[in-house]
């Protein structure tokens, strides 16, 4: 029993580091490990991943808030969209065919991966020539962060707020209905659509995904899907991992983070397309 506990903690540690750096929930790592390697029922694996998302989010957010990497206003504003999307997702389960959602959002992630690759080749992380966006200025969304790998303060502007809001609505809907992609869509909306630099995008995604997950977590908590002997060691490992990851991310060059990020979202996107094609 101690052995399985230590394995859970180690998995959590790794998932926490990766999740905090990339702004993803870590379900992509945890669900396969629990179901394929440990033979756990998918119901309990989902319960554990939702706890994992919250642990990653809260663990990483402490450092991201203190070091001022994330954009609190962007997070708050977009959380309106993700939470509305989440409720709609819960209500539409059984009405909307998930097949089309898999196809649509899979395609969106693949597009975003391709777009990120272009950004990487261009080699320019912050768009300095972006015109001040009227809505972004009104909502005071433009931000700044200190990049510890370049050792300089980076000011950035936010644009395409309505598009970002719309993608977030979809992100909430998809993660409410499909239970996946909680972080991938958020980073996509901020990085690809709203033209935020990758580091604040990832940090802000970390902050937001905890709120999105909290609502569904209580459902899983009270229906018995969250097994304490699995989820607790996992969560403890993740908290430590996320605290480490949130420090590592700040000193990593944005290019490196992007290089890790691209194959990951391409993988999630292709996996969703596959599920859409074979029919969920």
């Amino acid at each position, binding site marked *: 029993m101690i052995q399985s506990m230590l394995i859970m903690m180690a998995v959590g540690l790794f998932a926490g580091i990766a999740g905090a750096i990339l702004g993803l929930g870590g379900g992509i790592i945890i669900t396969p490990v629990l179901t394929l390697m440990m033979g756990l029922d998918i119901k309990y694996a989902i319960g554990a991943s939702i706890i994992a998302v919250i642990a990653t989010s809260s663990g990483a957010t402490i450092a991201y808030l203190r070091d001022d990497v994330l954009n609190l206003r962007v997070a708050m504003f977009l959380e309106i969209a993700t939470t509305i999307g989440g409720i709609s997702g*819960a209500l539409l389960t059984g009405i909307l065919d998930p097949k089309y959602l898999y196809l649509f959002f899979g395609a969106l992630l693949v597009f975003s991966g391709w777009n990120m690759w272009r950004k990487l080749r261009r080699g320019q992380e912050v768009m300095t020539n972006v015109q001040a966006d009227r809505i972004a200025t009104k909502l005071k969304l433009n931000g700044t962060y200190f990049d510890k790998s370049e050792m300089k303060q980076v000011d950035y502007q936010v644009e395409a707020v309505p598009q970002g809001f719309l993608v977030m609505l979809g992100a909430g809907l998809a993660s409410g209905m499909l239970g996946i992609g909680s972080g991938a869509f958020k980073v996509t909306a901020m990085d690809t659509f709203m033209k935020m630099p990758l580091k604040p995008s990832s940090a802000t995604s970390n902050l937001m995904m905890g*709120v999105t997950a909290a609502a569904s977590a209580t*459902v899983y908590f009270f229906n018995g899907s969250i097994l304490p002997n699995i989820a607790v060691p996992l969560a403890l490992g993740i908290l430590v991992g996320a605290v480490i990851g949130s420090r590592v991310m700040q000193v990593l060059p944005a290019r490196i983070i992007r290089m890790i990020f691209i194959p990951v979202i391409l993988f999630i996107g292709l996996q969703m397309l596959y599920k859409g094609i074979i029919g969920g």
Partner: protein
Amino acid sequence: MEEQSHESKATKNEMAHIETIIGRILQIGVIVAAIVMLFGLILLLINGGNGGYPTGHQPTTISGIIAGTVALKPYAVMMVGMFCLIMTPVLRVVVSIYAFYKEHDILYVWITTIVLIILCISFVVGHTV
């Protein structure tokens, strides 16, 4: 132009202050959750892996969890810890409302309040669907 940069500087200072408040509260929440979870885990180890409930079961009602925690049953204590963890993002939203209010940022008091209301609705929806 100058006025604009002055305004954005004020916005930045305000943000730094708000973020510090929220970060501190979040940190306390996470530490409390971690300590309770760790305590439950240690109880479980002392009990030789026996969670205090039949195999594959854990308390899932509030009264059951409270009763189990009073009796120091490992699974009940672990459930309390996880519940604290689940509540940390909600706590963050609540504290944000207060922090924006203290900084007289009424627009974001509204935005954050809307988020909290939707979040409450989703709790209800989640439990009825």
